[in-house]
C-alpha cells in the first residue's frame, strides 16, 4: 500500500532521502502538466516546475496537514511560480495563431491547426493534439482551473485555494472555459459524428 503523502513529508523532514525522492517521483507529472498548460512552453515548464519543487522543499517544514492535502499545497506553489513568470514575461500575450520569432515552441510541438482540418487530423489519430491545441487558445486562468478540476480532481474550494480565486470565480471560469472551447472547435469546423 502506497505511503500517504503526509507520511512521506514527515519522513523527509526526518532526513529520509528516499521519502524526498518519492515525493518528486509522485508529483513530477501533475506539477509539470499544470505548469505546461499554463505557460505553453515545454522547456520553460520544466524549469518552472523545478523551481516550484525547490521552493516547496526548502519550506517543507511549513506544510501543515490540517490545512489541506500536500498535493494542493504543492500545486499552489507551482501556480504562484507560473503566474509570477507570466506576469513578468507576458509570454501568454503571443497569440498562438500568429507565430513569430518569439513564438513559444508549442508551435513546433503541435501541427499548425490552420493547415489541416480537424477531421483529417482526427483520422490520423491526432484527436488529443487537436483538443490540446484548442485548449491552448483559452486564457491561462481558464486552462489552469480546467486541469485542476478535471485532470487532478480538485474540488471547487480546493481550486479556489490553489489559484487564489473566489469560489464563484472558479465556477465561472470553468463554465466559460467549456463554452469557449466549444466555440473554438465549432470555428474550426469540428462537428460531432452523426449517430449510427
Amino acid at each position, binding site marked *: 500500500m502506497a505511503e500517504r503523502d503526509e507520511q512521506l513529508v514527515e519522513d523527509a523532514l526526518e532526513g529520509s532521502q528516499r521519502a524526498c525522492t518519492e515525493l518528486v517521483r509522485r508529483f*513530477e507529472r501533475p506539477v*509539470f502538466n499544470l505548469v505546461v*498548460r499554463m505557460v505553453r512552453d515545454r522547456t520553460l515548464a520544466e524549469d518552472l516546475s523545478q523551481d516550484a519543487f525547490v521552493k516547496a522543499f526548502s*519550506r517543507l517544514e511549513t506544510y501543515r496537514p490540517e490545512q489541506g492535502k500536500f498535493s494542493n499545497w504543492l500545486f499552489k506553489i507551482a501556480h504562484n511560480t507560473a503566474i509570477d513568470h507570466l506576469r513578468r514575461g507576458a509570454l501568454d500575450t503571443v497569440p498562438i495563431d500568429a507565430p513569430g520569432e518569439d513564438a513559444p515552441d508549442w508551435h513546433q510541438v503541435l501541427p499548425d491547426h490552420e493547415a489541416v482540418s480537424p477531421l483529417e487530423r482526427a483520422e490520423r489519430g491526432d*484527436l*488529443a493534439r487537436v483538443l490540446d491545441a484548442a485548449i491552448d487558445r483559452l486564457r491561462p486562468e481558464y486552462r489552469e482551473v480546467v*486541469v485542476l478540476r478535471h485532470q487532478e480532481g480538485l474540488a471547487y474550494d480546493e481550486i479556489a485555494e490553489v489559484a487564489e480565486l473566489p469560489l464563484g470565480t472558479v465556477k465561472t471560469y470553468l463554465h466559460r472555459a467549456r463554452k469557449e472551447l466549444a466555440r473554438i472547435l465549432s470555428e474550426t469546423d469540428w462537428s*460531432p459524428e452523426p449517430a449510427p
Partner: protein
Amino acid sequence: MTNDLRHRIDAWLFAEDAREDARAEEAFGAMIAALPRFAPSADFAARVAAAAVPRVVRRSALESSWGWKAAIAAAVAMAGVTAGLLPLARVLPVRVPGWGEVVAAVASAASWIVDWTRSGVFVWETLARIGKAVAVAAATPEVGAGLVASVALAVGALLTLHQLLQSERRVVG
C-alpha cells in the same frame, strides 16, 4: 483510446448543442480527464531531486535553531522590559520594600484615596501632576538616556519576535 476520446468529445458537443448544461459539464469533465497528461523529460525527476532534496531542512536542525532563537528573543524581551521599568523607578519613589513597608504603603495608599475623594481632586488634574513629574524627571540626562535605551531594547525585542513569526508563518509560493 482514439475512439473513446472521439466519443467523449461528441457526447460533450451534443449536450452543448442541446443546451443541457449539467450533462455538458459532466461530459466535458470526462473528456478532459481522458486527455493524456503531459510528461516531463525522462531525466526531470533526477534533476529535480538533485536540486530540491538538499534544500529540505531537517526537523532536528530546525528545532535546535528554534530553541536558540526563542532563548535569545526571550532574553532580549526581558532586557527590554527591565530597562523600560528603570526610568519609572527614577520617576516614582519606588524601592524594594520589606513586608512591613508593603503593609504600611497599602495603608497609606488607602488613606490617600480616601483623602483624594474627600478633597474632590479631579482625575485629570491628578494625571497632569503625574505627567509634570515625569517630564521633569525625563529632562535629566540619566533618565533621558535610560528612556532611549529602554525604547531601543524594546524595539530590538519586537524585531526579533517579528523575525521569528515571519519564518514561522512563511508565505507559500
